């Protein structure tokens, strides 16, 4: 790691959703995360574990319940006001999973891509058109696609439109929420390569959320694993992938099927027993204790903290097995 101040820091960041009857969903619970400039941090974990919520809360799309977040050392507001959005939208953006529903079907591609500039800059209409055209070229589309509507494009093309829309303000930090999950294998590589190239040319910092662990390892410098609202493990992506430490990460990695029939046939399947606990009534102690194959007595009462490993300080694990 370099000595430069981190780009994004979340400290005990918490986001609860209120339910009727005073109950609440512990979507993100006391997450502490540092993202360095020009770094790609991959975020994986079970469905409903809080990945999207963490990403959205970091860039102000959800108000925080508690905890702090900062950007280049400057505290981010707990709840964004319109002027906060104007200011921070230029620095932080999000790319969404579904290239079908996230683009307004009644707007032309030019209007969609240029919208950010219209809202957040003083550019003239012609300038906006020119910049939108440039961006379409940059993501591998044609400037004369501007007058067409989203339904005229394939999934991969729509995802490029979504990327152009997010990047036209030239943000520094982009949350990519499953940007490739809805795409065909043949198209996923196009989008990943495009992000990779833009990362280099623009110096982007990315939080890359996905289910496909092989792709996350490929794309990311570090990988963070979430389970039921908390980060249970984080470290260099290949290290986490090839030698997972947390029992949940072990099972997650073992569940990731690889396109290699011989290997798959000989691999013992390790599935998790039991069902995911409700994020409303989170278990006491370790959140994985009800399903963990290596659970100990202490796990059911004491919450393990995310701490560096004794022999690899760039890796952190929240599990009593690694307590020193």
């Amino acid at each position: 790691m370099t000595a430069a101040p981190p780009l994004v820091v979340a400290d005990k960041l918490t986001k609860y959703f209120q339910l009727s009857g005073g109950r609440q969903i512990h979507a993100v619970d006391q997450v502490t995360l540092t993202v360095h400039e020009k770094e790609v941090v991959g975020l994986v974990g079970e469905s409903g574990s809080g990945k999207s919520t963490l990403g959205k809360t970091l860039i102000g799309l959800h108000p925080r319940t508690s905890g702090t977040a900062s950007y280049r050392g400057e505290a981010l507001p707990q709840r964004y006001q319109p002027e906060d959005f104007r200011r921070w939208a230029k620095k932080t953006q999000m790319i969404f999973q579904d290239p079908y529903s996230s683009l307004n079907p009644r707007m032309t591609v030019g209007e969609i891509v240029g919208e950010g500039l219209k809202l957040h800059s003083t550019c003239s209409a012609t300038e906006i058109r020119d910049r939108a055209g440039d961006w379409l070229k940059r993501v591998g589309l044609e400037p004369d696609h501007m007058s067409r509507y989203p339904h005229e494009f394939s999934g991969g093309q729509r995802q490029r439109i979504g990327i152009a829309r997010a990047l036209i303000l030239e943000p520094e930090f982009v949350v990519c929420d499953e940007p490739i999950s809805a795409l065909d294998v043949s198209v996923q590589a196009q989008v990943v390569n495009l992000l990779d190239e833009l990362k280099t040319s623009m110096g982007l910092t990315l939080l890359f959320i996905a289910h496909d662990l092989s792709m996350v390892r490929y794309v990311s410098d570090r990988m963070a694993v979430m389970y039921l609202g908390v980060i249970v493990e984080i470290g260099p992506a290949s290290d986490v992938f090839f030698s997972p430490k947390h029992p949940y990460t072990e099972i997650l990695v073992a569940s990731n099927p690889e396109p290699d029939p011989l290997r798959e046939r000989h691999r013992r399947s390790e599935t998790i027993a039991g069902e995911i606990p409700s994020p409303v009534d989170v278990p006491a102690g370790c959140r994985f204790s009800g399903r963990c194959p290596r659970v100990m007595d202490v796990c059911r009462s004491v919450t393990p903290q995310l701490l560096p490993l004794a022999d690899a300080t760039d890796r952190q694990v929240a599990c009593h097995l690694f307590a020193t």
Partner: protein
Amino acid sequence: MTTVQPQDIAAGPPLLEVDDLRVEFDTYGGSVKAVRGVSFSVAAGKTLAIVGESGCGKSVTVQTLMGLTPMPPGRITSGRARLRGVDILGRTEIGGREIRGREIGMIFQDPMTSLNPTMTIGRQIAETLEVHRGWSRKRALDRAVELLDMARIPEAAQRANQYPFEFSGGMLQRAMIAVAIACEPAILIADEPTTALDVTIQAQVLDLLSDLQRDIGTAIILITHDLGVVARMADDVVVMYAGQVAEQGSVEDVFYRSAHPYMLGLRAAMPSNSSDRRHRLLPIEGSPPDLFSPPTGCAYAARCPHAMRICSTTDPGAFSLGGGHTARCWLHGDKAPRVPQLAYAGAAPGLKA
């Protein structure tokens, strides 16, 4: 037209043989040639995976076998599908046994398309047994609980009394499998059964399918575009492109001895876990052809890095590489140059299947 009958070496005669199936849809824009001469066979107790790009005709193929393709606008313009030798296209039952539900069970990507939200899970399974097998209410309900238990639904007896909305996504998918196997069908068709699930829940569902296959001997047709899932589950693979079979064969042949440039393209587009991170992914540029007027030559020609002049004028048809492995590609013709990454039939020039 060439037809291909892959021979399964291990098993006896195939349970299901699909031969030159063609399906079109009539629309205001013209007719969409969704399935253009698909042939494959499924052996009893084995798993056949169908892979391919979105829109290439995977779902229409299997839905047509099940009689689920709406007609009109759909139309079967040719083909046969023989289950134990009897053509099932256009029929709803053979020998007094209903095809849908009894002979062939189906699992969809979205469990709610086949579960009734206003009926308890247990009743839904029991009803299938009452209708298809004429069982008593009591016997059917007892079996429903057993099936939920086989599908690893915890506390199956209590869960049987719950409604679909009380189940999580992964549990619903497993409950739907319980419904689909209730009548112990000869074939289970699973259309993207795990696409909406995360990898740990996906693994549970895939394990369940494998265990059930072992226990009740069902053949499985698995549709997915996840090559990892194919590697884990399949005995045989059909790779579809633009309504046709581009390549088919055993999972080993298709993965380790790929013979069609589209399959090579898919493999190069995926990150490999054994290699170094910085080898760049190679996407397949371009998009599939318009199925209103499919190209006269090879459907993949516009995207293929090895396309030759003949490819854009003449359909290659399927070349046989032996052992049931076939590829629809001119590179297997005897006048074609050799492409190093591609597998060929022995050292001999390609033989027309």
